[in-house]
């Protein structure tokens, strides 16, 4: 299980590939399903062109909350491994914002856990998004 925050652009597929080769080497032949979610910054939100966003976080608490989310998923499903990367700071359109990868024996639990983690992350991890649009900057209000 690994959770990390990242202040610069990262390549989600190279990261997953490298992680699997390292962290899951002992579990080769054991995992049958991997569910991955990648969230990417769009250049449009609420009808406005967005040129960049800044993701503020709470150093210490954000990592802790992400770890708790993964632990909760771990206790609910039989997960062989989980890997989460979340960008913080200044983010440009088409940059990856978040990667969640879950390895399990069977596909049901991989999909369920990956979905659960991304929803918990979205609704409970301390991140706040400020967008730069034509008219200046705006904090984005919470949406469900």
């Amino acid at each position, binding site marked *: 299980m690994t959770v990390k925050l990242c202040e610069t652009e990262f390549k989600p597929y190279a990261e997953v590939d490298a992680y699997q080769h390292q962290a899951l080497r002992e579990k080769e032949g054991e995992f049958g399903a991997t569910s991955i979610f990648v*969230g990417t*910054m*769009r250049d449009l*939100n609420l009808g406005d062109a967005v040129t960049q*966003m800044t*993701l*503020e976080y*709470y150093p*210490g*608490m954000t990592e*802790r909350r992400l770890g708790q989310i993964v632990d909760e998923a771990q206790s609910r499903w039989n997960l062989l491994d989980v890997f989460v990367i*979340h*960008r913080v700071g200044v*983010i440009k359109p088409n940059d990856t*914002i*978040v990667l969640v990868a879950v390895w399990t024996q069977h596909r049901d639990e991989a999909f369920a856990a990956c979905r659960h983690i*991304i929803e918990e*992350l*979205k*609704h*409970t*991890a*301390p*991140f*706040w*998004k*400020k967008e730069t649009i034509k008219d200046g900057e705006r*904090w*984005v*209000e*919470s*949406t469900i």
Partner: protein
Amino acid sequence: MTIRVRYFASLREKMGRIEDTLVAEDIATVSDVWRVVSTGQPLPEQLLCAVNMEYAKAMDPVKDGDEVAFFPPVTGGLE
């Protein structure tokens, strides 16, 4: 007792500062902390709170050395 109080995102901008250090004796709960730093305002319902980096409620107790944080609802990176 001494309590470190931190603000994030739009609340940080509204407060005009990133944190306060409270030194006071009549503070028992998160709600009390807010009353002091906001000079008497009640805690807004939509504001989130944390004590020592765990989500907390208005009536949760605080003690000497705690770190209390206030922030708006989280928005994640995804829309």
